[in-house]
C-alpha cells in the first residue's frame, strides 16, 4: 500500500474499476452483423443495430457462453436466471434510445481476482458483478466543424461490464488488477484484450481518505484504453483530490476525462442534466434462463488460469515465484514457455525465454505472438546446449542469429561451424599451446595461485573461438597443471 504525502499528512487512495471487455464473437449481441474491427463505416450494421422501426433483438448464444466462461474464470457465482433491462438515454451513437444491459439481475455475481504486487505480496480484489450489454456506435467529432459523424459498426457489439469493489489502494494496484484481469480474459479466450482497438477499456473510480477513514467522495474517469493511462489517471486524480481537500475545498462527485497529452484529468464539458436511466426489463426479451448442465459444460472446458499455472510452475517445475509470475502474466508467453520446456529442463528453458527471448522482444518492441524465434526452435537450442553440441556462450550467439533471421539453430550452428569441440586430442593441443605460451603463469599456479585456473580456461576457450567444451578444457588443464606439480600436495 502506498500512501500519498500531502501537506497535512498521509492520504490513501481508494480505487475501483468498471471494465468494459468486448466479447470475442463473430456477430453482435442481438444481431447478425459482424464484430470485426476496422470495417467500412456503417457496413457492419444490421437493421436491428440501426434501430429501424419494428426491429427486434435475438440473443447470441456464444456471447452468453463467453460471459459464463468469464464468470467461472473469475471464480464467480453464475446466475441461472438473469434479466436484460433497457437503460434509456439519448445519444446519436445509441440508435435505439436505450442500451440493452443488465441492471438488477446480472448473469454473473461476485467473484475475485488475485493480484501480485511489486513487493512480492498479493492482494485480493473482489469482483462485484459481470453483466452483458451492448456497445454504442462511434461519434467522430473532428470531421466537420459543425457536425458530428456517426458510425454504428460497433453499435450492438457485446460487452462484458466487469465491476470491481473499491479494493485497490494505489494506482499500481489498479494497474496490476487490470493486467491480471486482461490476462485472465485472454486465457479464457473471451476477450482479445486489445486495448488500442478499444476491446478492453476501463472507467476508474477514485476517492481519497485518511488511511482507514470512511470513504471519500469519488470521481469517475471515463474510458481509459491503456494500463499506463489507468495508472497515470488514478495517480493524477488522487493527487488532485488531495490538493482540493487540503486547499479547504470539497471533492465534487463527477465524471472526468483523462487528457493523455498532459496526464491530467478534467471534468466532462457536456454536463448532462441529471441522469435518470429509467431502467426496466426489456419487453422484447424474456429472462435468460441457464441450466446447470450448460454451466458445467463450460466449466469442463476451462483452461488452466494464471494463478493455477503459476503454482504448477513453482511446485512442479521448480521455477522461482518471480519467473513463474512473469511467464504466466500473458497467455501467449506461458504457452510459449510450456512448449519450450516440454520434455526439457524447465529452469533452463525459463532462463532462455525470460532473459534472452523477452529481452530481445523488448529491445525490438515485438509481442510474443510476433517472435521471430519459434518455441520449437528455442527448444532445439536448449537441446543443443544440453547435448554439449554448443556451449552456453555460443548459444547466445546462435540465438541472436535465430532472432535476426528466423532460422533454426541446427543450421546456423552447422553453417558457422560452431559445434563444440569435445574431442580430447584437439583440446589437448590447444591446452598444451596455452600452457606453453604462459610459463610464468604456470609457475605461479604451481606455486599455489590455483585461482589462475580461470585464466587458463579463458585463454583456451578463446583459442578455440569458444567452441571447446569447457568441461573438457577444465579437466585437461587441471590434470596437466597438477601433474607437473607432482601428486604430493
Amino acid at each position, binding site marked *: 500500500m502506498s500512501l500519498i504525502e500531502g501537506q497535512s499528512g498521509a492520504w490513501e487512495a481508494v480505487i475501483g474499476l468498471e471494465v468494459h471487455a468486448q466479447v470475442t464473437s463473430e456477430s453482435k449481441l442481438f444481431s447478425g452483423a459482424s464484430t470485426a474491427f476496422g470495417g467500412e463505416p456503417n457496413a457492419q450494421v444490421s437493421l436491428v443495430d440501426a*434501430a*429501424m422501426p*419494428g426491429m*427486434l433483438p*435475438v440473443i447470441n448464444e456464444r456471447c452468453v457462453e463467453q460471459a459464463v466462461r468469464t464468470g467461472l474464470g473469475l471464480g464467480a457465482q453464475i446466475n441461472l436466471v438473469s434479466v436484460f433491462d433497457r437503460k434509456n438515454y439519448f445519444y446519436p451513437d445509441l440508435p*435505439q434510445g436505450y442500451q440493452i444491459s443488465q441492471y438488477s439481475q446480472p448473469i454473473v455475481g461476485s467473484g475475485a481476482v488475485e493480484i501480485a504486487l511489486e513487493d512480492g505480496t498479493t492482494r485480493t480484489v473482489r469482483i462485484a458483478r459481470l453483466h452483458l450489454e451492448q456497445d454504442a456506435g462511434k461519434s467522430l467529432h473532428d470531421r466537420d466543424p459543425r457536425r458530428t459523424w456517426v458510425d454504428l459498426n460497433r453499435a450492438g457489439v457485446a460487452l462484458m461490464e466487469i465491476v470491481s469493489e473499491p479494493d485497490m489502494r494505489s494506482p499500481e494496484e489498479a494497474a496490476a488488477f487490470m493486467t491480471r484481469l486482461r490476462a485472465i480474459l485472454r486465457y479464457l479466450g473471451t476477450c482479445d484484450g486489445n486495448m488500442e482497438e478499444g476491446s478492453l477499456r476501463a472507467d476508474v473510480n477514485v476517492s481519497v481518505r485518511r488511511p482507514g477513514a470512511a470513504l471519500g467522495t469519488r470521481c469517475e474517469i471515463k474510458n481509459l484504453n491503456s494500463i499506463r493511462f489507468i495508472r497515470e489517471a488514478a495517480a493524477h486524480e488522487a493527487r488532485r483530490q488531495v490538493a482540493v481537500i487540503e486547499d479547504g475545498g470539497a471533492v465534487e462527485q463527477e465524471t472526468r476525462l483523462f487528457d493523455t497529452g498532459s496526464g491530467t484529468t478534467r471534468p466532462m464539458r457536456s454536463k448532462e442534466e441529471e441522469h435518470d436511466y*429509467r431502467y426496466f426489463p426489456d419487453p422484447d426479451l424474456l429472462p435468460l434462463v441457464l441450466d446447470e448442465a450448460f454451466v458445467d459444460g463450460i466449466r469442463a472446458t476451462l483452461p488452466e488460469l494464471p494463478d493455477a499455472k503459476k503454482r504448477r510452475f513453482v511446485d512442479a517445475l521448480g521455477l522461482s515465484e518471480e519467473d513463474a509470475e512473469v511467464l504466466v502474466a500473458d497467455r501467449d508467453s506461458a504457452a510459449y514457455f510450456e512448449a519450450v520446456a516440454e520434455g526439457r529442463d524447465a529452469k533452463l528453458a525459463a532462463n532462455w525465454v525470460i532473459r534472452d527471448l523477452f529481452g530481445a522482444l523488448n529491445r525490438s518492441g515485438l509481442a510474443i505472438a510476433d517472435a521471430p524465434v519459434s518455441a520449437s526452435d528455442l527448444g532445439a537450442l536448449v537441446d543443443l546446449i544440453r547435448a554439449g553440441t554448443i556451449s552456453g556462450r555460443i548459444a547466445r550467439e546462435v540465438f541472436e542469429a535465430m532472432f535476426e533471421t528466423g532460422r533454426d539453430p541446427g543450421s546456423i550452428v552447422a553453417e558457422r561451424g560452431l559445434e563444440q569441440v569435445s574431442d580430447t586430442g584437439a583440446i589437448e593441443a590447444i591446452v598444451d599451446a596455452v600452457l606453453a605460451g604462459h610459463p610464468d603463469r604456470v609457475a605461479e599456479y604451481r606455486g599455489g595461485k590455483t585461482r589462475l585456473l580461470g585464466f587458463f580456461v579463458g585463454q583456451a576457450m578463446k583459442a578455440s573461438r569458444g567452441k571447446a567444451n569447457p568441461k573438457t578444457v577444465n579437466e585437461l588443464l587441471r590434470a596437466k597443471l597438477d601433474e607437473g606439480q607432482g601428486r604430493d600436495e
Partner: protein
Amino acid sequence: MAGGALTGLTIAAARDALAGGEISARELALAHIAAIEDARPLNAFITETPERALADAAASDARRRRGEAGALEGIPLGIKDLFCTEGVMSTAASAILDGFVPPYESTVSRNLFEAGAVMLGKLNLDEFAMGSSNETSHFGPVENPWRRRGGNRPLVPGRPSARSGAAVAARLCLGATGTDTGGSIRQPAAFCGVVGAKPTYGRCSRWGIVAFASSLDQAGPVARSVRDTAIMLGAMAGFDPKDSTSVDIAVPDFEATIDDGVAGLRVGIPAEYALDETPGDIRALWEDGIAWLRDAGAEPVEVSLPHTAYALPAYHLIAPAEASSNLARYDGVRYGRRVEGADLIDTYARTRGAGFGAEVRRRILIGTYALSAGYYDAYYLKAQKVRTLVARDFDDAFEACDFLLMPTCPSDAFAIGEKSDDPIAMYLNDVLTVPASLAGLPAMSVPAGLSEGGLPLGLQIVSRAFDEETMFRAARSIEKAAGFEARPGPRA
C-alpha cells in the same frame, strides 16, 4: 360480376370464385381500386398502392394458372400503416416517420403476400396506434362509414385499427391487418360492424411492426366474417426466430374447425364486465349472446375476474412506459423528419416535439414519469404485478369454463371529437378489451346487433392461450345466430 358485387364478397367467397375461374385477381383488384378512389373522403388509406395491387394481381393470376395458389391467392387486402412494407412508405400515421420507406418487409405482411395476397395500400390509424378513436393520425381522422340513425355527424371508427375496420366495413378491401395492444382490433371491428381477432401474444411475429407496447402488441385480422378472419390468421401466424417473444408451436387449421359448434362447451360470463354505465342495449345484446350460445348447446356459467377494474389503469401505465422507450428511436437521426435546433439536445426536443402529436406526447410523458427514479416501483412495477393478478383471474376462470363472452365496448361509436378532450373518458372505452390484452389471451369481436342509435355493436369472445380454435368456434356460433346483415348505408 359487377364491381359492387366483387367488393361485397367475403374472402371465402372470393377464394372460391377465383378458384372456379369465375373472376380473376385482376378484376378483384380493379374493383377495389375503384372503390378506394370513390371513398377518399373516408380517409381510410395513407398510401394507396394501385400499381402494386395490379402487379400483385397479375402475378397471382399467373401463379394460379401454374396451379400454385396459396391460401389467400388473389385476395386484396389493406395493410395497417404500422406494418413496415418493403419499398412502400410506412409512417405509423406520424409526422415523425413521414417519408420513411423501409428496406424490409414485416414478417406478418410477408406471410400474407407469400400466401398470395394483393396489397391495396397502407391503412390510416391513430398515430403509433395510440388513441381509442382513430382521431390522432397525422394524416387526419378516419371516418366510420356508419352514421347514427337520423344523424349525419361523422363518427369515429374506434381504435387504431380503425382504418382497418372502416376500410373493411366500407368494402374497400376484403380484409385488413390490424394490431391490438389494448383492443385496437376488437374495438374498431365492433364500431364498424366487422369481425376482428387478436390471437394469443406470441402467435404472430412482431418483427417489422412499428412497436407501441412490446409486451402487448399483437397482430391480427379484420374481415367481414369469422371464417375470413380464421383464413387470414392462418396465413399471418407462425413462429418467427427473429422475434424472441414468438412462440414456436404449430399453427392449426383455424378454418377447418369453425363450424364445430359449441355444444358441450362452458361459456363463462364474467360478472365484473357488467359496468354500472353499460347502456341497456349493450346489456340486452349480451343476454342475447348468452341465449344464442345456450341454444347452440353451450352451458353458461358465471365466473369472476375480480381484478378487472384495475386492468385499465395498469394498462395505461405499462403501455405508455414501454412506448416511451420504444419511441425513443424516433430522434431525427436515421430516418423520418428532423427539426434542426440550436444544438443536439434542442434538435432532439424540437424534432420529437413537432413530430409527435398531442396524444403520443402525453403518453410518452406518462411513461417517462412512470419509469423515472423514485416512481418505478409505485407505478410500472406495481402495474406489472397487477397484470399478473389479472392474468391469474383468467386462469382461474378457465378452470370453470372453456371461453368467455362479454361485450366488446361499453358504448357504440362516438362522434369525432366527442371525447378527445378528456383522456380518461377516452381510455374508458378500452375497459372491456384491455384485460385480455394484459393476459395475452386470444380475443375477438363479432358484430351481433345494432345499438338504439342504429350503430353496430360487437360481442367479445376470449379463450385460453393458444386456443384460438375455440374462440373461432364460439364466434362463428354467435355470427350464425345473430345473423348480422346490416352494413353502412350510402353516405349523405
